[in-house]
């Protein structure tokens, strides 16, 4: 029973980890809490869904026991790329003009407004009913003692971990990755070292947005696609980023999985209706006890 809950938590954690990465990056580099980040998950899922629908006519070969095939993977990549673009557009249209005017706190209100607008734009375009990536019913199979999972769920976790590994390699060994880490570490020093901060910020949005989109697709695959999915995940995402330590990408991954597991484990002791509150309680505890998070720096 516990093992199953743990497994469920890992699956949820896959989405949260990917979503939290972009959140912690923009929070650290641009110094504001982007409430619109959840929308990037939602839009990623919906965009990928639309692409997948478009492809399905052409080639619907499945990947064996997985419920989807190349169409979904391709849709995921395209959806992620477009979501990255969406993130940049929002920054250009809304956040940059507000940063200039230096009305700092208006950024948070604006991001809250943007999140509601983007969510409702989804309703306008796609409608309010839940959507699903596939109509195939999958059977849960036993993969470990006491743990059952569908092939889709296993795929999601594996792919999430793969993305995290790729991200790590990117940050460690590429120029752009190092420049991103430099800006997260010390933006003024990065500027003074000749890093083109504005460019790197655009790429940060692309990276954060794409990863969030992937997280959204994973959630859509394992649960469902809803207009408010991103907004509902916002609190757990913030909790994950804060728990891991704002600015620490590895912290965001860790935080994502911890929050996911804690939320699912909590079902053993409290009513499932309160699952969303678990992330919030953890976040408050972190803010009171150790605001810098697990891997963050003490400021």
């Amino acid at each position, binding site marked *: 029973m516990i093992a199953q809950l743990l497994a469920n938590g890992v699956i949820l954690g896959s989405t949260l980890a990917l979503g939290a990465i972009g959140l912690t990056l923009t929070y650290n580099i641009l*110094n504001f809490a982007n409430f619109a980040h959840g929308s990037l998950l939602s839009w990623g899922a919906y965009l990928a869904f639309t692409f997948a629908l478009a492809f399905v006519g052409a080639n619907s070969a499945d990947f064996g026991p997985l419920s989807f095939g190349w169409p979904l993977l391709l849709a995921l990549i395209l959806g992620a790329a477009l979501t990255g673009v969406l993130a940049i557009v929002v920054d250009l249209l809304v956040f940059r003009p507000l940063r200039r005017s230096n*009305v700092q706190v208006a950024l948070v209100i604006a991001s809250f407004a943007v999140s509601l607008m983007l969510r409702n734009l*989804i309703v306008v375009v796609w409608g*309010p009913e839940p959507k699903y990536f596939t109509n195939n019913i999958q059977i849960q199979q036993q993969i470990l003692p006491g743990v059952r999972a569908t092939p889709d769920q296993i795929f999601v976790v594996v792919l999430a971990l793969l993305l995290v590994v790729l991200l790590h390699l990117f940050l460690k060994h590429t120029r752009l990755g190092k420049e991103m880490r430099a800006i997260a570490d010390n933006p003024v020093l990065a500027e003074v070292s000749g890093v083109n901060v504005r460019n790197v910020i655009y790429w940060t949005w692309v990276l954060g947005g794409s990863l969030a989109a992937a997280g959204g697709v994973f959630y859509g695959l394992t649960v469902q696609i809803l207009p408010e999915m991103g907004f509902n995940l916002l609190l757990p995402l913030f909790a994950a980023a*804060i728990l891991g330590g704002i600015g620490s990408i590895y912290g965001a991954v860790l935080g994502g999985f911890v929050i996911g597991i804690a939320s699912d484990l909590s079902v053993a002791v409290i009513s499932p209706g309160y699952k969303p509150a678990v992330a919030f309680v953890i976040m408050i505890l972190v803010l009171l006890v150790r605001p810098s998070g697990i891997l963050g720096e003490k400021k």
Partner: protein
Amino acid sequence: MMGLLSYLVFFLIIAAIFAIVCLGLNLQWGYTGLFNIGIAGFFSVGAYTYAILAGPHHAARLGSFGVPFLPAVALSMVAAGLAALLVGLPTLRLRDDYLAIATIGIASSIQLVASNERWLTGGTQGAQNIVQPLAGTFSSSLQYNLFFLAMMLVFVAVVYLALERMVHSPWGRVLMAIREDETAASSLGKNAFSYRLQSFVIGSMVMGLGGALYASFITFISPEDFLPVLTFQIWAMLIVGGSGSNLGAIVGAVLVWGLWTASGSLAQMVLPADLQVKGGAFQIVLIGLVLMVVLIFRPRGLFGSRKALVSHGAKTPE
């Protein structure tokens, strides 16, 4: 003709209720710089408390205790204030954006309780048959609504005058000094945290007042009435009307609520039935755009002061 008058009266009543909530937010944000994105939560505490206290007895849920109108309203304010105290004690020491996240969490948690605890709130079905003050005294619903509107105007005036008094008093001046520069203010020996807590609690009590009045007028409330959209609407009202100005809070409430209902009516007339939900979504997009435009081009709104918006923030890169 009667239809139009009825509509107008109804519109003004709701606008007045929101004006009161907006005044509460103005105290917290406009004068103290507190970032409350959990408005819907405190509003709902006021509403549900009133529902439990006033109104007929219910088999399925707690209440009602048949408490008369004014005491019930007062107690609802107290409940909202208590909730604010509980929330504020751990969170008001956090920096601005953490406070914002925390208040979202609070509102979301209150929403969860309201949806789950049927014994307290009627769960997702909500609380019905709440008693209106002086119900049955008037012969038509239009006459009743006119009475309620008159009562609302009195409430708005009272709250407005009380808040104006408060912010122009020595207490209010300390509050604004803390908003501008916390370290300087504390060096004067004023305990910044305590002042902020007072402002937060009082502001939330005002929001609870709005909630109680809402429940007493609409007579049926459910968790669906207290979604984050409400918080968003109140913020839009304050930003448009002008942060830091009580007059702005009232004017902003009427304007934004007007824009909201006008666009809603337009959507209803123009869209076929199956697209109605999309129409609702479109309203939000529209208000969001208005808010965005105001924030970028005239952040202080109609009557607000620039000082209310300046943060003690760090320099951000371009």
